[in-house]
């Protein structure tokens, strides 16, 4: 033992200190010992004690490892490095690596010592310096010392060459500009026989390729053959005890070589081709009963997946992964899952075959495997398997670990949202998730659910009853409670009257007071959070109007809440109470059902996600015939947001403050009293201003139905302000005029005359898109009996003198529209308008009568073999489509 601690044999103080520290029974004792030691070391530093300097620094390193501050020892490292002997230098460099890092200014002082040591005659000292440089080198040091390191790549002793190679990696990672100096000496290392030098050389070349395309080209051309041969030699080498791991010679070198071949083969068919044979050999001949063999196979599979396509090899690789997946060793299964994620982009079908096994892995007891498997399942889901897979995942949610529920819930919600084939399924699945793991469901997911519910009027009754049941069963799930309370507030009457009963439902008897119970329980339960309680208060207010028989009871609950210590709840209950007591006449108008929430707006607002499949690319601006020049880079969301926010949405405006406020503001300007009718027209005006050139079709054809309920139910704001009842006639008479005059002022284009209503399904053609090279005209027709569907005949005309080949037209629409594209009449467009191509589009507008069509288009074609891409958006559709 004593010989091992040789450098400190002049005194056993380091051992003594470690013993003393280990003997401490409490943390306080330990601190005392450390304090005493540190004081002694500081004293020695102050006295500039030389004899024990390296012993003191060693002690400091131990103290540092225990977590105590040791900054005062940094300068001692530098002094030791500058001393002459190897033992001092060794401790000095060790201290340098442990106590300092590349960010300390002190490090500047060490560059000179390093330079001297890199040129030292003693190769062990050179080794020390290289090691320190490799571990803590900063960009500045890299620049200063790169020539020394480059020279050392050719040093006679292999121990120095391999250290210099790894040092070079650090240098080029810090300063990629230096890469080109290293290309030639690095290539020379690839011819070495010494494994240490070879493996570090391969690693250096791999890193060079990462930072320099020049290096990549060079190695691809000059070294692929050499590397293939080296790998062949290593793979076929006879038993070599020095490098043997479980019967395989140097698996580390195997792996480094395979990794470098991957870099060279990626994107280069010739290089890939030259390595096919050796990859096939490694993939078939490597023993897979030991970890080392599997590590090589794993690396080999990754290389096969990444290099240019070779069908046979890929089948081999997928088979290896299949074997891995059924392995009993968890590590092997883990890497299989990891690699299948990459394989999915290569051969999704092959991965789908392992779906059942992967699904089992989601239920593994090991969190690492679960996490990988869940991500893989997420990638595997498509329209055809979403139902069974979601069912499996939701079933598993019941029994899964608490700390996995968060991940699992998020993924299920995302799957359901993305692939839901129908609304009822979406709602059903979300309710199951909310009941099982409502506390893990994020707020925005709940909001999305509410938006969907609100957009499915035929399911309102079903949903509110299902939520009522779910609430009874699992009222501890916060998100479930919120959604339930919201829906009961909105659709409470449907709950009680069993409106819209579906065949699949069991009948349920809920009294009005049962429904009020839900809100009351929620308010009174102390675990409910503020938002939930506030939502319950609103639900109560709404129910007070829906259920007159319960209004006394509701008032009592609200009165109790007036004493709430939470300001928000107190304020709400006081306000609501006064509505109940003093403003009975407007109450029913105030608590109208919420307007249908707009799905496109909502999805657009969520994290800026683009709701359609075509992602806007290329910064080129583009001319749309209605005079708007809009950069195509502007996300489609903007477009959707704009139209949906400002769309008149006549039937839903009753509670929409934005519209009403705008309407009230605008209507005096157009010379009307602030009536709700005028408000409507005011909004239209605004709409027209914003959408520039949308034909001012009079929307009154769809509005009458909303005027039929009592007059003052129209808008909350208007009613609250006590404005007089509307005078529809004057407003209606004045509005078209006002609208069209503004249009004229703004663009004077008047793209199409206002479509007269009740004129049958005849719509004017529009020029949907026109650029210097291309014109697209749309002709519209309606299929009789289904006003939601519009058939558009698109006619493409080539305005240039070149023939367009491979002509492809693509279109994207927001969520409330469904688009079906028939094949085009041809994919070649003759030059100079000497012929046209036509294509039929069928658009289904689920918000027919509320929203106009909008579309974003992309046209790709080739002129003389050159790709051309044009993009645009169309918002000059006739209004009533």
């Amino acid at each position, binding site marked *: 033992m004593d010989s091992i601690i040789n*450098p400190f044999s002049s005194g056993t103080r380091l051992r003594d200190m*470690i013993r003393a520290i280990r003997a401490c029974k409490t943390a306080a004792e330990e601190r005392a010992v450390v304090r005493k030691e540190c004081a002694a070391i500081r004293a020695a530093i102050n006295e500039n004690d030389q004899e024990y300097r390296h012993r003191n620094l060693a002690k400091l390193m131990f103290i540092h*490892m225990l977590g105590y501050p040791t900054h005062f020892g940094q300068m001692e490292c530098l002094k030791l490095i500058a001393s002459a002997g190897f*033992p001092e230098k060794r401790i000095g460099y060790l201290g340098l690596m442990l106590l300092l890092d590349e960010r300390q200014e002190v490090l500047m002082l060490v560059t000179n010592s390093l330079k001297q040591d890199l040129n030292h005659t003693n190769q*062990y000292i050179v080794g020390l310096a290289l090691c320190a440089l490799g*571990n803590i080198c900063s960009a500045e040091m890299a620049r200063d010392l790169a020539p020394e390191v480059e020279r050392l790549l050719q040093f006679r002793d292999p121990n120095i060459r391999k250290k210099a190679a*790894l040092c070079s990696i650090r240098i080029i990672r810090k300063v990629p500009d230096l890469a080109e100096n290293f290309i030639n000496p690095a290539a020379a290392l690839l011819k070495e026989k010494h494994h240490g030098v070879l493996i570090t050389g391969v690693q250096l070349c791999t890193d060079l390729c990462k930072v320099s395309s020049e290096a990549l080209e060079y190695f691809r051309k000059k070294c692929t053959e050499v590397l293939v041969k080296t790998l062949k030699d290593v793979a076929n080498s006879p038993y070599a005890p*020095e490098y043997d791991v479980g019967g395989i010679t140097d698996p580390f070198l195997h792996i480094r070589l395979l990794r470098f071949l991957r870099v060279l083969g990626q994107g280069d068919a010739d290089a890939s081709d030259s390595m096919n044979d050796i990859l096939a050999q490694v993939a078939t001949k490597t023993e897979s009963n030991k970890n080392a063999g599997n590590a090589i196979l794993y690396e080999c599979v990754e290389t096969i997946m990444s290099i240019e396509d070779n069908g046979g090899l890929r089948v081999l690789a997928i088979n290896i992964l299949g074997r891995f997946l059924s392995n009993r060793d968890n*590590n092997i299964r883990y890497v299989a899952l990891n690699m299948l994620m990459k394989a999915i982009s290569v051969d999704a079908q092959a991965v789908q075959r392992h779906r059942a096994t992967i699904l089992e892995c989601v239920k593994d007891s090991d969190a690492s495997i679960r996490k990988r498997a869940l991500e893989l399942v997420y990638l595997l889901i498509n329209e055809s398997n979403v139902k069974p897979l979601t069912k499996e995942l939701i079933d598993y949610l019941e029994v899964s670990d608490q700390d996995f529920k968060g991940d699992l819930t998020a993924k299920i919600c995302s799957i359901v949202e993305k692939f839901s084939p129908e609304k009822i399924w979406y709602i059903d699945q979300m309710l199951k998730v909310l009941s099982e793991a409502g506390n893990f469901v994020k707020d925005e997911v709940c909001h999305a659910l509410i938006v969907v519910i609100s957009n499915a009027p035929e399911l309102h009754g079903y949903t509110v009853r299902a939520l009522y049941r779910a609430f009874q069963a699992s009222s501890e799930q916060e998100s479930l409670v919120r959604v339930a309370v919201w829906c009961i507030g909105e659709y409470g009457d449907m709950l009680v009257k069993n409106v819209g009963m579906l065949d699949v439902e069991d009948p349920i008897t809920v009294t009005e007071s049962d429904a009020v119970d839900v809100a009351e329980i929620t308010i009174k339960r102390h675990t409910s959070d503020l938002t939930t309680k506030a939502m319950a208060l609103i639900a109560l207010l709404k129910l007070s109007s829906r259920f007159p028989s319960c209004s006394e009871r509701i008032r009592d609950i609200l009165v109790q809440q007036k004493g709430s210590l939470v300001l928000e709840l107190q304020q709400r209950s006081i306000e609501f109470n006064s509505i109940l007591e003093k403003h009975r006449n407007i109450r029913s108008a105030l608590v109208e059902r919420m307007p249908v929430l707009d799905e496109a707006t909502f999805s657009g607002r969520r994290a800026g996600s683009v709701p359609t499949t075509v992602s806007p690319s290329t910064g080129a601006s583009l001319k749309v015939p209605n005079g708007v020049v809009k950069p195509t880079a502007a996300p489609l969301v903007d477009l959707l947001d704009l139209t949906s926010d400002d769309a008149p949405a006549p039937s839903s405006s009753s509670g929409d403050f934005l519209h009403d406020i705008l309407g009230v503001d605008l209507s005096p300007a157009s010379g009307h009293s602030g009536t709700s009718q005028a408000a409507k027209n005011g909004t239209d005006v605004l709409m027209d201003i914003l959408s520039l050139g949308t034909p001012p079709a009079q929307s009154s054809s769809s509005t009458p139905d909303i005027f039929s309920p009592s007059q003052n139910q129209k808008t909350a704001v208007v009613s609250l302000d006590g404005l007089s009842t509307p005078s529809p006639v004057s407003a209606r008479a004045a509005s078209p005029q006002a609208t069209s005059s503004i249009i004229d002022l703004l663009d004077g284009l008047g793209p199409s005359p206002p479509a007269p209503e009740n004129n049958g399904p005849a719509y004017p053609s529009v020029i949907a898109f026109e650029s210097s090279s291309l014109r697209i005209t749309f002709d519209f027709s309606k299929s009789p009996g289904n006003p939601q569907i519009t058939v558009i005949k698109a006619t493409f005309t080539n305005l240039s003198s070149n023939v367009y080949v491979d002509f492809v037209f693509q279109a994207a629409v927001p969520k409330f529209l469904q688009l079906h594209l028939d094949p085009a009449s041809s994919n070649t467009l003759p030059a100079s308008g000497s012929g046209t191509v036509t294509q039929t589009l069928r658009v289904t507008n689920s918000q027919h009568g509320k929203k106009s069509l909008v579309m974003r288009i992309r046209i790709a074609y080739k002129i003389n073999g050159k790709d051309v891409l044009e993009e645009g958006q169309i918002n000059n559709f006739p209004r009533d489509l």
Partner: protein
Amino acid sequence: MIRFILLQNRQGKTRLAKYYVPLEDSEKHKVEYEVHRLVVNRDPKFTNFVEFRTHKVIYRRYAGLFFSLCVDITDNELAYLECIHLFVEILDHFFSNVCELDLVFNFHKVYLILDEFILAGEIQETSKRAIIERLGELEKLE
């Protein structure tokens, strides 16, 4: 690339910590604490890999000691597992039947050994014999 190497005992005492990326001292202590918490309670049947922030930790337990390597997410997990084992074999050979106390009292030697095995976060030498011979030469210089 290896980000850092930790040797910890079951109680979470750090016996060796080597960082190949710069971290503040406070951050290092946090990392050590978190890694220990991640690995210490895992079932031996579980994988030897845990995801840690944006990287992953490959760990292996030998008696009461945990050897943990933090590597890039794209690195070959199985290879690093083999790498830990090789390091342990070298330690075992050098200290002839290594135990935790050897590592405590000779921590500076352990760093010396590690520096001959791994440099700049990459493997430097794959032959146990070559490393042991080199260490023998260095010993003579002390």
